[in-house]
């Protein structure tokens, strides 16, 4: 009898293979067996057969075939259109059926996504920054890295003198463009002065950068020292519809200039923003004519920028090498001060690294990442909310999932079903969030410094594509957790409606989420509350001088004495003084002075006349005030801090002291004034003195009798017109001006308010979802309690207790963190600041609890009122 392959081995292989097709494998084994028989004994052939079979059983080939065969053929195609259709239909039905939860989910996601859209629209626009320059790949900027032995700083600017070196001493640089951003002039036109800001630039500027001229020749426009180029919008301001080319206008400092070209308006996505360009030569001339300007001006790198236009062949390393070889102290007059240089490519400027003294808007990675973090802080809770609410409602979908699984639905199927459902919701939310985006975008632009002129949030193809991708990603993130959860369900348990084992753990996760969300919301509320109280503290701060009923009239070039005479005629004006600025609202100019004994000290200076002290109720501790004559120009009135830094024991001892200015002139102290806040509250009171010089006076301070202010101001305006001036009357009350200088607090309030609103909306929606779910699941319990005699109040307390605990926990977490954070924040922004106190914390808590508790009680009270008969009838 012919020997057969061992049957047991065959059976074993078949058994191990389960449903996997092994016909060909077994065939090979059989064939091999019969072949073996021809040259070996039956026993050996059988042993060999066993060996082969076992190797097949443990081989990857069988494992793979088993895996492929694990699912019936008809369900293995994951991307079947009919199934998709079915998912879509089921998703729509379940969304419609549970309108309330759909609404909560959609709203939460919409709110969270709206800030994401803002971020994306912003990034999408920033992406286009400076991409209109045709030479953008060959333009580089030289940036400076300074080291003064205390700190290292990086400046966008570089000394202009570097430009000479770069254009002469090295090949490979086709053009060097010096840009100086200090061009800030007023153009005289009819009776008005129109302010214009721009740059002094080398003539080659217009050839290197792609700022096209609509009129004039770009090659010659800036060749004449008195020829300037203005933008179309500046041209409209100056000449309306007339052709500006060849017109002559008068600019302050620069004198008469000719318009030699008109530029197209500067695109918003340019890191350079200007209205007027003047030749660099004009800047050089201007400095030459000012004998007071320090000699070492060419070494100064502030506000001076150097751009390089490289020839196509030159390599970056070669230029960088050259820059590295420049001795680090060659462009500075200060000891212990070193500057190194680096090249920065044009596209890397904005958004780019954080640099001091930037020429245009600051789009540094640092500020953008703060915005990104804020976005994520809002967006991620919104996604969590969705996951949270979906999982807590798992019980309602259990039967469906169990059935799908029994009928051959795989994990992947269930997973994709819930992902599709989430994406459907996300797109609904996306519609709403686009609406929110359009509503808030203008407000948002106004919140960013210079946002409206350097940022555009208009929808274009790129941002819309990014939006849709974003919605998809949000859908995937929000849906991933619930989809995995549902996909994991065991069909038997699901059909029996047994929630899977880790129920407690899941609930803890959800609780944690709620706590974190409320803690975050409380943080934002604290932000709003503390900023408001900081603002109130600031404007009600005792500056140490009188600000009531003082009208500051901008002199705008009018002779101070004429103005004084004219205003003095008015009955409503009690007294008049002159000053160089608005005290208490802005940073003041500082100067380094010394006396015989002490080293140089930095002192803030302010010009005022003799009646200024009286007018503002400043107290003289010793000495006298200015006599308003030419002798007064050599006098100063110092403050108490000044005495301290010059080590003068008493006010009286200071009188008659001589101090020396940097230019060698000497001044005599004639008075000492009590300390007051001469600058804004961001900095402490330091050494300060008043000087007298009518040429420096910019404002007349009119102390008014407080009867009818409107009429009085009318009278003052009338006398202004009598003065020999063409300028428009410009006046403001002192206290208004001080308040205005702190208006940036409103921007913070708006920002925190907006973010806080989003955060609170999301947390309250999340809470609402959880409360509703809990209440729904406990309806029977409530019924039983009622039957047993519990009152509505009892039940409300039972139902609300857990959630109130969560909110308390959130408050416990948020208060210390918020306390430390906001105290530090104010410490850094303002020297005289509030400390976050009981009132602020209590106020924030009150807001949070009013919102949170109303969310909770809206549901629990309703549930407690339900008639027990309705819930228990079926039992």
């Amino acid at each position, binding site marked *: 009898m012919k020997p057969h392959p061992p049957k047991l081995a065959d059976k074993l292989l078949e058994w191990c293979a389960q449903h996997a097709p092994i016909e060909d*494998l077994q065939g090979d084994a059989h*064939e091999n067996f019969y072949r073996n028989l021809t040259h070996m004994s039956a026993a050996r052939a059988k042993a060999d057969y066993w060996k082969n079979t076992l*190797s097949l059983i443990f081989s*990857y080939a069988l494992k793979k075939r088993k895996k492929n065969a694990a699912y019936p053929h008809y369900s293995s195609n994951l991307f079947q259109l009919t199934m998709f259709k079915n998912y879509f239909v089921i998703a729509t039905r379940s969304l419609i059926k549970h309108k309330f939860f759909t609404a909560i989910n959609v709203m939460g996601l919409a709110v969270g996504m709206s800030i994401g859209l803002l971020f994306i629209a912003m990034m999408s626009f920033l992406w286009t920054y400076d991409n209109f320059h045709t030479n953008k790949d060959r333009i580089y900027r030289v940036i400076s890295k300074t080291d003064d032995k205390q700190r290292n700083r990086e400046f966008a600017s570089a000394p202009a003198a570097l430009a000479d070196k770069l254009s002469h001493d090295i090949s490979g640089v086709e053009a060097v463009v010096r840009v100086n951003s200090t061009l800030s002039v007023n153009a005289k036109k009819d009776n008005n002065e129109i302010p214009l800001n721009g740059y002094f630039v080398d003539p080659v500027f217009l050839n290197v950068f792609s700022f096209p001229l609509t009129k004039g020749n770009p090659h010659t426009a800036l060749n004449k020292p008195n020829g300037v180029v203005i933008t179309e919008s500046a041209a409209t301001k100056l000449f309306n519809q007339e052709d500006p080319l060849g017109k002559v206008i008068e600019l302050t400092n620069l004198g008469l200039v000719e318009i030699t070209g008109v530029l197209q308006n500067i695109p918003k996505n340019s890191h350079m923003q200007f209205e007027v360009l003047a030749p660099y030569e004009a800047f050089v001339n201007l400095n030459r004519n000012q004998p007071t300007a320090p000699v070492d001006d060419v070494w100064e790198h502030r506000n001076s920028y150097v751009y390089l236009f490289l020839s196509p062949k030159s390599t970056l390393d070669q230029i960088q090498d050259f820059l590295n070889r420049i001795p680090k102290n060659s462009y500075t007059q200060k000891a212990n001060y070193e500057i190194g240089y680096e090249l920065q490519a044009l596209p890397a400027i904005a958004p780019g690294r954080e640099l001091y003294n930037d020429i245009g808007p600051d789009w540094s990675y640092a500020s953008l990442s703060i915005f990104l973090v804020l976005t994520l802080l809002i967006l991620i809770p919104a996604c969590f909310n969705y996951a949270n609410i979906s999982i807590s409602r798992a019980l309602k979908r259990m039967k469906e999932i169990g059935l799908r699984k029994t009928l051959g639905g795989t994990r992947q199927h269930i997973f994709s079903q819930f992902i599709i459902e989430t994406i459907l919701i996300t797109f609904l939310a996306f519609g709403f969030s686009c609406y929110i985006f359009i509503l808030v975008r203008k407000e948002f632009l106004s919140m960013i410094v210079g946002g409206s002129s350097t940022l555009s949030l208009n929808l274009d193809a790129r941002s819309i594509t990014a939006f849709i991708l974003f919605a998809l990603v949000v859908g995937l993130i929000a849906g991933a957790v619930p989809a995995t959860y549902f996909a994991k369900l065991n069909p038997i348990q699901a059909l029996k409606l047994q929630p899977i084992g880790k129920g407690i753990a899941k609930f803890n996760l959800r609780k944690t989420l709620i706590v974190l969300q409320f803690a975050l919301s409380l943080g934002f509320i604290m932000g709003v509350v503390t900023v408001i109280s900081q603002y109130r503290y600031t404007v009600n701060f005792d500056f140490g001088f009188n600000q009531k009923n003082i009208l500051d009239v901008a002199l705008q070039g009018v002779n101070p004495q004429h103005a004084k005479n004219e205003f003095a005629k008015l009955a409503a004006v009690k007294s008049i003084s002159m000053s160089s600025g608005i005290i208490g609202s802005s940073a003041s100019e500082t100067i380094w002075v010394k006396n015989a004994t002490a080293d140089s000290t930095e002192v803030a200076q302010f010009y005022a006349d003799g009646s200024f002290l009286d007018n503002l109720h400043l107290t003289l501790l010793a000495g006298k005030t200015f006599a308003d004559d030419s002798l007064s120009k050599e006098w100063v009135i110092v403050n108490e801090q000044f005495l301290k830094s010059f080590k003068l024991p008493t006010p009286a001892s200071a009188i008659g002291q001589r101090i020396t200015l940097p230019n060698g002139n000497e001044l005599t102290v004639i008075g000492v004034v009590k300390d007051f806040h001469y600058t804004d509250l961001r900095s402490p009171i330091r050494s300060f003195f008043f000087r007298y010089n009518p040429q420096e006076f910019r404002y007349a301070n009119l102390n008014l009798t407080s009867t009818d202010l409107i009429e009085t101001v009318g009278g003052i305006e009338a006398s202004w017109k009598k003065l020999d001036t063409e300028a428009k009357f410009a006046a403001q009350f002192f206290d208004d001006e001080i308040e205005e200088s702190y208006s940036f607090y409103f921007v913070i309030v708006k920002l925190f308010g907006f973010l806080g609103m989003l955060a609170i909306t999301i947390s309250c929606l999340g809470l609402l979802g959880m409360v509703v779910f809990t209440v729904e699941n406990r309806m029977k319990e409530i019924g039983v309690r009622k039957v047993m005699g519990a009152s509505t109040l009892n039940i409300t307390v039972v139902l609300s207790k857990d959630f109130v605990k969560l909110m308390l926990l959130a408050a416990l977490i948020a208060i210390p963190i918020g306390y430390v954070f906001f105290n530090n924040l104010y410490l850094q922004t303002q020297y005289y600041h509030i400390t976050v106190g009981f009132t602020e914390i209590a106020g924030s808590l009150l807001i949070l609890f009013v919102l949170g508790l109303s969310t909770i009680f809206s549901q629990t009270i309703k549930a407690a009122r339900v008639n027990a008969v309705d819930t228990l009838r079926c039992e």
Partner: protein
Amino acid sequence: MKGYIGEFEELVLLTVASLSESAYGNSIKEQIEARTDRSISLGALHATITRLEEKNYLKSRLGEPTQERGGRRKRFFEVTHQGKVALHHIKELREDLWKLSKATLSLAK
């Protein structure tokens, strides 16, 4: 490097190519055993074939039932275009290396 081929994988691919129309499990096994004088198990061979199929270097089709195998069908294999590309790659690599190392590899003493 994408699609790395091991020594045995290369051997199997080349054998499949050399057998052209009649490459199936057993014939491949015998060819390799005959040429390399080493004994390989069916499990190891099929595991490698499966991996080569995953990499898209091999494709297969079922043949007709034959008496010899008790009516069981054979699975015939064929090298795909990608498989050929991969083989060419490895051949070039070898040749390059051989060229570079002529001196040191010469067997002449």
